[in-house]
Structure formats: structure tokens, C-alpha cells
């Protein structure tokens, strides 16, 4: 995510939660998902990803457990919790409102 990370605080949390809607994933998969979904515009560095995951877990938005990965290696999988879903919904709503407003301003 590079420099834009600081611009809108909390965006990364939103993106991670959104990615996890697709089901349980390990950290790398989350980063890749965001990368791909953004048409390779956004790159999530591990230096931002893991602190964010750790924070979300502490806030009880996601939970983690160890499982086997696609290449049969042990990996830590994150999945959304009920609280995470609620938070995602409310964050998405406010994001939509915010970005709509910004769009509207820029369009005039």
C-alpha cells in the first residue's frame, strides 16, 4: 500500500475484512487477494499487514488457527468473526458515504 497507507487510516482494516469475506485465508493470501482485486494497484507489505492482523485479532474482529496450506505447509489461517462482520458492514457503509461525498466534490 506504500505511501497511501497513512492517508486514510483504517482503510487497510476494511480491505482485510473484505478479503476475509471469501473465507479463511493465511496472511500471504490476504495480501495477494487485495493485490489482485485492486488490479495490482495496491501492494500490502508484511510490515503493515501483520500489525493490522494482530490489532484486528485483539479487537475480536477476526480469529486465527493453524491449518495446512495448499502446498501442504503449516499456515496460520484467519477467519471473520461475527463481530468482524458487523464492523465490516458499518465501516463499509461509512466508507461508501465518504467516498461518495469525495466523488461528488471532485465531480463539480
Amino acid at each position, binding site marked *: 500500500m506504500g505511501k497511501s497507507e497513512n492517508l486514510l487510516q483504517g482503510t487497510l482494516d476494511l480491505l482485510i475484512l473484505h478479503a476475509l469475506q471469501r473465507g479463511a485465508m493465511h496472511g500471504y493470501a490476504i495480501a495477494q487477494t487485495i493485490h489482485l482485486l485492486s488490479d495490482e494497484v495496491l501492494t500490502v507489505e508484511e510490515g503493515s499487514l501483520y*500489525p493490522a492482523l494482530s490489532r484486528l485479532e485483539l479487537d475480536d474482529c477476526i480469529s486465527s488457527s493453524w491449518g495446512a496450506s495448499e502446498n501442504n505447509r*503449516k499456515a496460520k489461517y484467519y477467519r471473520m468473526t461475527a463481530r468482524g462482520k458487523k464492523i465490516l458492514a458499518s465501516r463499509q457503509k461509512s466508507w461508501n458515504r465518504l467516498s461518495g461525498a469525495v466523488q461528488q466534490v471532485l465531480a463539480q
Partner: protein
Amino acid sequence: MNSLRRTVRKLLRRPKLQGEMEAELAHHRELSTQNGNRISLGNVTSIKESALDPWRFVFIENIWRDLLFALRSVRRNSAYTITAAGSLALGIGVCTAMFTILNAVDLRPLPYAYPQQLVWVTQVLKANSTDELTLTPDFLDWRDGNRTFQHLIAYNEYTRSLTGVAEPIEVHSVKASADLLPLLGITPFLGRNLPQTADLAGQERVALLSYPIWQSRFAADTSIIGRPIRLDGEQYIVTGILPQSFLFPGAEQVDIITGLGKNEAGELARDGKVFTIVRNVIGRLKPGVTNGQARQDLTAIQAHLPLPPWRPTITIKLLPLRDHLFGNAKVTGIVLVGGSLIFLLIASANVASLSLVRLMQRDRELAVRRVLGAARARVISQLLIESSMLAGFACAIGVFIAFAIRNLLVAFGPYGLSIYGNLPIDLRVIVFASTLLILTILIFGMLPALRMSDFHLGEAVAAGQTSITGKRHNLRLLSIASAVEIAIVIALSSSAALMLKSFWNMRYKNLGFESQHAIAVTLNLGSSRYADKNREFSFINQLLDRTAAIPGVEAVAVTLASEIPPGEGHATNIVRIEGRSLAANSRQKALQRGQEVNASYFKVLRIPLLEGRLLRDSDRANSPPVVVVNNQFARRYFPGESALGHRLQTGESENTWYTIVGVVGDVKTSGLAAYPEPVVYTPYGQSDGARLRDLGLVISSALPVASIAPEFRTIVAALDPEQPVAAIESIDHRLNASVSRPRFTANILFTFSCFGVLLAIIGVYGVLACRTRVQIREIAVRQALGAQRTAIISNVLADALRLLIPGLLAGISLALVGNRLISSLLFEVKPGDLTLLATVCAGIVVAAFAASFLPAFRASGLDPLVSLRQN
């Protein structure tokens, strides 16, 4: 609720997360490389740290880490730690101990109800002399006529013999008005207060027992109430027991209180048939009455009262009770606390300069921390934690020191502190100690920490500057502080040296006798049984014979209790010398101390015979009357001739002429601080026995008092079961006790000055260490240009001289002025004793030079290449 859940989650989950994070990151990297992404450059440890940060209790953990680090650095620098913590601990300890005195005497309320209403009253009678006492009839008129007091009571103190118990003892007792307890707001622990009628003569035979005496002499027997006890052979009925916590409002604690017993009608008649005095009057003011109003009230009553026959002028003195009890102690307490606070301040300043020196040695470490991104606040907090730890440690030791020495202060302290038993350590003392702690942390922790973080250390390292002490004026401030310390220390040490020398002179010089192996015993034969001279002498003679037979006793001698060294008071007995007219002016009357002794007295105390012969056991009532005089007497009244053969008459026996048969050496019997006075020794066999009722024995024995005392008491009990032994103690003990006050002052001053010398040394060391550190480049360049080691050392020592000389000069002038203040306390020492002053100065100069050698050697031992490269 939420935060609690988070805390629990943190505590439970975190240890596991810490282990997992590494594997997770490794997995991430592996996948990343496999998929051909570029390898991210992040530092694994740093990512781990920041990922785990939310799970941490950051604030507490940082403090904890700093504490651990501080502990490690404290252990590494044990010399620094011990010096710094030690001097702070002493400072805080001494301050706190002094404060407990001030607290007890000035701040803590007296242990009575509404203590601010309590006042002490006395008449001041001025005629030929000035006396502070109150005439009983006037007291009675005050008591009955005043409008400003709730209660007004009087009491007198007496030493009486308590008999009828297992072993007769002397007790400290008072005869007091029955209103004493209601006035103080005290109710007896058991039984009742004295009845009001006990104020009247004939009905005063009632007693209140103190809790300790009830415990120790009456086995805490509750049935004692209503039963009689014997005081000086008379029966008193016990009405009550005083509470355990009761403190008598006087200088000494009281064992027994009995009725005042005044013939009130007779006193008020003022016809001279009955006329007594009371020594202590205490009053409780009515609420809202001021001391001034009370004094006016009493003065108005006094104005209408007739004067006693000798027509003195009578004024009334009225003081708050606290001031009467502790007046001197309060001033002394304030002075001592003030003095010790200055010491603490100097100690803190010293420790601050020491910690600056240490910081300079660590500037690289701190700079590296800052460069690596430690926030300024973190560096400050780390330094503060280090100094707080040190100060906390010092404070703990300091309070312990205070706790230990406060009891010594009570034991040796000359003030009326015994009323409190132990000086209480209460909330006020603890608050005081904590304030000191915070103060010291602020002074010696905050200043260096702030200064330290103020500089851009990264730049400092790059530029090779020792930035911390870069500003010269800071060094100058330290130098001035150090010179002032030296001055104070010289003044203080010279006073201490004077006091020590004076104490030594007093206690050990020119005693005139040998105090080793001598035991003094005093008995008060005041009871009516010994009014008969024959009974008295038979008792004394039997006592002498049996005591001499105790195994281990070499000799026993009889004398007057008041004349056993160190003795007290001044000679007041008139002596008439044959062939000389008695001058009318009393100043020129020949005076002497009369002493009635037996032959072995001189042997027991090893008093040398100078001329003639000693007294003999054969000098009896029926043999020619003889006396022995001391050297002082012979020199004063027979200058230029021999005293032998002259005859004299003493005040006691005006009809007998005594022949002087011998002259002996002078003995200090007017107190150790006074010169020997003329003494006339009369054979006790030729005395009328009246003065011998204050009987004194001196026993010569190699055995300690503890093994003689029980034997002696058994003998007295066998001769007369009703007769108590007033005291039995070694003469050395008596001598030591008599100089407890100068000893206390000397000890305090000596301790302070030792502490001061230590501080001055630390101060000199700190300043010079700072200075050499600042000059390190200069020194290195000089070394590189060929300067010798000795040149570098002498350079640093010259710096030391620059501190010392102004300090010395100021100190000597301060000492010459200051020592005059204590001149009244000195014995056989002049305040301007230059040898002593020179010794003290020399000692301090040597100590200061020793302190400056360390930094000098360190500077000279540096490798110039290394120091140039480093800086």
C-alpha cells in the same frame, strides 16, 4: 468491561502469539519468493515487535524494562551507587531523625484533650534574687477568684520511698490538686480519681499509681484499689490506676500521685504561721479565652493580694504548656532540621554532579539510543527511572537510619523528650521523608536528565564534543558549590574538634582521682527512724562492716551522697579560720565544700596525700577534732605558708575548732565542667550525722556493679527492710552521665562533620572529574605534543587548588566567627585554638587532594590517540 476483556486476552494469548509470529512471517516470505515477488526489505524483528505492540502493556513494560536496565547499570557501577546512595541515605536519614524531634516537640499535639487551652503559670518573685515559684495562698486566691480558667491546679515533686512491697524503692512522686486529671481530660484506667478533699491538709493520704509501677511493684493486682501502700513510712490509700498511655506533663515521668494536702484556711490567713509554696501551676483556659486575657485576669487578682514579709515585686508569667515543656527543644529542633536540610541539599548537589560525570561516561550509549530512534521522552524517563531508583533506595535506608538513631536521640538527647518514651514516627514524618525523596529526585535526577536530552546527541557524537558539560558556566557553578562545601566543612569540623577536645578535658583531664573499679552507692536515711544519731551511726557502721565483707570488695568508704564525684553545685559553706576576721562582705567570706568521710575514702579513690597525714579511723568523737583540706583550700587561704597546724571552724559546728592535719590533691566535686573548689574533709566519726542522712558509699572492687549490687541490697534489707537503696552504679557511669549533654553535642557535631568531610570529598571529586572530561581534547593534544604525565597530573591538582584555596580562606574566617558561638560550651579550650584549626584544615586539604588524584591519574593515563579519535 471491554478493556478488562482485552487485558485478559492479552495476558492469555500473547505468549503463544510471540512464538507463532516468526513461523508465520517465514511462511509469508517463502510464498512470496515462490511467486516471484520482489523480496520485501522489512526487518523481521521490527515487524514482529510492531505486530505485537498492540498486545503489550506498553507504558508499564517500558518502565519495567528501564527498571531492569537501571538495576543492571547500578550493579555495574557499584562504586558510584554506593557513594551516591550512601550520601543521600545519610542526608535523608539525618533530616528525618531531626524532624522526628521537631515533630514530637512542636508539631504533634500534646497527648491531652484540647491541648491549646493548657497553660503553665508561675509567679516571678524579685527581691535579692529572682525566683520562679508561686506562693500557696496566692495560688488559692487565683484558683477561687479567676474568671478565665476552667481548672487551675498546682503540684510539687518529691522523691519518696515506697515500702511494704517486695523490695523498697525510691519513687518519683508528686503531690497534686485533685483537679489534675479532669484538667488534662484523663480518667483513671481503674478505680477513681483523687477525691476533692485530698487538696486539704490531713486528708491527702490517697494515691494514684502509674500503670508501670502498678505492673512492676503490685503485679497488676486489681484488688490494690482501696488498700494502703507505704510512702516514706506513711499509709496512703490507693484510689485508682492511671492509664498506660498517660504522660505526666513534666520533665520526668511520675510513679505515684498523691493529694496536695494544703492547710487552706491557714495559708489564706497569711499570718506567717502556715506558709508554703507550689512550684508548678497548670491551668486550662475557658474556651475562647486568650493567654493575654488570662494573664490580665490573674494580674488583677494579684494586685489586691498582700505581699509576703520580704516584700518582693511579683509579676505573673504565663506560657503555653507546650512551650514550658519543650521551649528549648523547639529552637534546637528547628536549627537541627535546618542544618540537616542544608546538608541534604549539598548531598543532592554532589550526587547531581556525580551523576553528570557518569552520564558523560555514557554519552555514547545515550547518543546511540537517540540515533536509533529512542524518543526524547523515553531517554528522559529512562534517566529519571535510574535516579528515582537510586533515590528510593537511599530513602529506604535513610528512613531506617532515622528509625535507628531517633532512639539514640532520646537516650542521649538533653531535651525533655523522655516524656514521649519513643519519638513517634507518624504520618507527618513519613510525609516529610517522602517530600525529601521527591526533592532529591528532582534535584539530582531531573536536572541532568533534562540537560542531557536537551542536546542533539547525534550531532554531538558526530562533532566529537562532550556536549553535556559543554557550557562552562555550569562547571563554574559546580566549583562554587564545592568551595562553599569546603568552607562549611572547615567551620563545622573545627567546632566539632573543639567540642571533642573540651569533652575530653572535662571527662578525663585532671579528675584528681581514679575512677576505675569504684562504685558509688547512695541511700536516703530520711525516715524518722534515723532522727536518732546513735541509731543512724550504728546503721552506717554495720553497713560499712558488712559491705567490706562482700567477696571481691577491697575497701569501702563513707561520704556524703552529694559529694561523690562528679558532684554538683558550688561551695556555699562558710568557714572561719582562726586568727582571721570574718569579712562582712559575703564575697570575701572563706567558702568550702564540707565533706564527712572515713579514713579509707582517700584509699578507695586514690586521692594523693600532699602534706601531713590522712584521716585515721582513730579520729573519733572523743579524740581531738581534726580535718584534712585539699590543695585548693591550702593555696587559696594559706598562700605562701603551710596549712598544717592552723585551726578552723565550719558552718555546721560553730563551737569546735578543727586542726588541719593534712593536705590532699584536688578532686572534681563541683561537676566535671568546673574547677575544684576548696574542700574540708571532716572525720565522719566527729560529725553530728545530720548531713550524713544523705548517705554515700564508695566501694573499691574489681568486680562489676552487677555482681556487687544484689549482695549489697541483701545487706541493706537485712539491716532495715524499710530502707530503699537510691542508686548503685559505677563512678565511671556517673561521670559519663554527668557529661551526657556535652557528649551529645560533641557527637552530633562530630557525626555531621564526618559526613560533611565525606561530602566535600565527593564534591571535589565530582568537579574535577567533570573538568578533566571537558578538557580531554586539550589534554590529549598536550600529551601528543610531548607533555609528561606529571605535568598533566599537576595540572589537575592545580585545578583542585583553585577550588581549595578560596574554600579554605572562607572556611577559616567562618570558623573563627562560628567557634565563638560555642565558646560558652567549651571547657579549658579557647575558641581560637589555632593548632586545632590548622589540624582540621590540613586534614581537609589532604582529603581533597586524595579525591583529586583519581581524576588526575585517569587523565594522565589516557592514550592521546584514543582520546583524540574518540572525540
